[in-house]
């Protein structure tokens, strides 16, 4: 069955075969929260190198890549079902691209799709402020705030593909792109 795609569909076709590929596996040491930060730092170190001629561009690229990667990997670690997390990253046509693939359960998928449907009809900046106000009166996590900051504050382009798997699990593939070098942003 074809995957259900939200966001910018063309992003899902971009090949990242020539980029960096990392797999986070549940080994004997177990996959934990701190691995998201470590992995995001590693990706930022590797991918920001081409911008090292200008200190300003480098700092900006390193930070933007680090923040984007960290948010996507944190989400994968937080919401995944047991199994590996596949991460691909690369620089292509003036953008940094990252794709994160992991398995989630049906309930998480429907909750997430609900948020993505709201995104189709509303400005992410407006939704971000709304979500912050909602979060201030409840302590629930998983509000999608990270994604809203990426879309609103980082002008990230994003796509989410949901593919049904056996055992009522869903394979979620998230692709995100931000313009590089950052000084080319308006």
């Amino acid at each position, binding site marked *: 069955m074809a995957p259900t795609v939200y966001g910018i569909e063309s992003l899902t076709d971009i090949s990242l075969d020539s980029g960096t590929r990392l797999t986070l596996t549940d080994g004997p040491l177990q996959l934990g929260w701190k691995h998201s930060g470590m992995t995001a730092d590693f990706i930022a170190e590797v991918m920001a190198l081409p911008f090292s001629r200008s200190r300003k561009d480098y*700092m900006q690229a390193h*930070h933007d890549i680090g923040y984007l990667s960290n948010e996507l990997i944190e989400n994968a670690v937080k919401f995944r079902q047991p199994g590996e997390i596949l991460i691909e990253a690369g620089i292509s046509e003036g953008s940094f691209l990252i794709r994160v693939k992991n398995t989630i359960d049906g309930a998480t998928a429907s909750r997430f799709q609900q948020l993505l449907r709201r995104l189709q009809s509303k400005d992410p900046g407006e939704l971000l402020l709304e979500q912050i106000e909602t979060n201030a009166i409840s302590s629930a996590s998983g509000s999608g705030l990270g994604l809203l900051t990426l879309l609103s*504050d980082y002008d990230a382009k994003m796509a989410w593909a949901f593919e049904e798997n056996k055992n009522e699990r869903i394979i979620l593939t998230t692709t995100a792109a931000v313009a590089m070098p950052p000084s080319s942003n308006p």
Partner: protein
Amino acid sequence: MEISDENFRVWAEQNEVYFDGVFRLAGPDAYAPIYSLISGLLHDGHKQVTFNLTGLEFLNSSGINLLAKLTIEARKMGDLLLIVKGTHQYPWQAKSLPNLKKLHPLLDLRLA
């Protein structure tokens, strides 16, 4: 009083709260002790409170949620002036701190 781990430190001196380092805690529960520390200071009877973020290198979205929640807390206390000191040195600050001003227009945001 101070809360810290190997990556970050947050502490208060009189009516100023300092954030230092990299904050990547796992969600509202993990940020709760920091929230309590600062929320306590907001309700301490000061006329103004400053969040000094000039040493805050990195903050994940759960941390941004914490700052936003504290900003809303300050907004609810009509007679309290909240000053937020930030820096252009860390790129996330110019991107995300203006959202605090949208939540609380009377907040004094100083990005240097």
